[in-house]
């Protein structure tokens, strides 16, 4: 009787462990739609923060645990070679535009000149290009 119980318990643990491992291995990529933002700010302020001091801005905004909600005006919308939709937001600092990348395959509906609110995670700044955001979700 005891042996049976032990075997059932062991098999249950193996099955649950295997199920969790399988789920973790295959868990889908998710965007920032359901994440509570740590900072809410205009695109212009984000660009200006990186223009002022990239290291300080990295330390503040470039964290897996830090989500941003950005308000801005759409400059361009395009899909890159990786099939990622991109919304570039206007900023007043040259070379410090904010580029919001969506998960590959996700489509976005936005037009130049529209005011939008986008949630996502900041990945940093690249020369000549601007501040990049990933896993973005168009809130409105």
């Amino acid at each position, binding site marked *: 009787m005891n042996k049976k119980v032990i075997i059932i318990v062991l098999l249950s643990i193996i099955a649950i462990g295997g199920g969790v491992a399988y789920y973790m291995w295959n868990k889908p990529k998710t965007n920032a739609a359901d994440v509570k933002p740590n900072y809410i700010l205009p695109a212009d302020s984000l660009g200006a923060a990186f223009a002022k001091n990239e290291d300080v801005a990295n330390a503040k905004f470039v964290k*897996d645990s830090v989500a941003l909600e950005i308000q801005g005006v759409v400059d361009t919308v395009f899909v890159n070679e990786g099939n990622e939709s991109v919304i570039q937001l206007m900023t007043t600092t040259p070379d410090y535009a904010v580029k919001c990348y969506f998960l590959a395959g996700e489509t976005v509906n936005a037009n130049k000149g529209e005011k939008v609110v986008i949630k996502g995670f900041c990945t940093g700044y690249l020369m000549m290009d601007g501040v990049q955001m990933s896993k973005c979700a168009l809130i409105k």
Partner: protein
Amino acid sequence: MKKLILATALVAISFGASAQRYFSKTAHIKFFSHTSAEDIKADNYKSTIIIDQATGAVQVETLIKSFEFEKALMQEHFNENYLESDKYPKANFKGKGDFSKVNFSADGNYSVNVAGQMTMHGATKDVSAIATIKIAGGKIDGSTKFYVNPRDYNVQIPDVVKGQISEKIEVTVKATLQPLK
């Protein structure tokens, strides 16, 4: 003598007009790790490259969090455990290549030796590679391939997964370059 000065000045002006800078904001950087246990690849289509033909300077920048893996879990491990992208968000290469022989305004294929230093995960190492430049119908495509050892960049790989990550990771860079006006 006046004619010689004039001719020299004209050559200098024409060289100055043709030798310029070329760039891409959508360079594709791919890395590929092959072991008998597993193949791992990641793609980043949002890197920047700038080439200055006159000085030969080459600069590449890429954000670590922009590498996309097939599996979300792999991407998490890459960022959190190996490349520590919260702490080291950017990798870059600064080097030089002899682009003086490249005629960017006519069709042709060129091989250019590029050498410099790559900084990643807080470590800087010398890197050299042969870059290929193909010019066809006004389109300028550049590409190169080289190999890196994660240990050279102080990337700590736990013993339990050592057999799954190569010590010779293939890095491929491809970009369509445009003149910087």
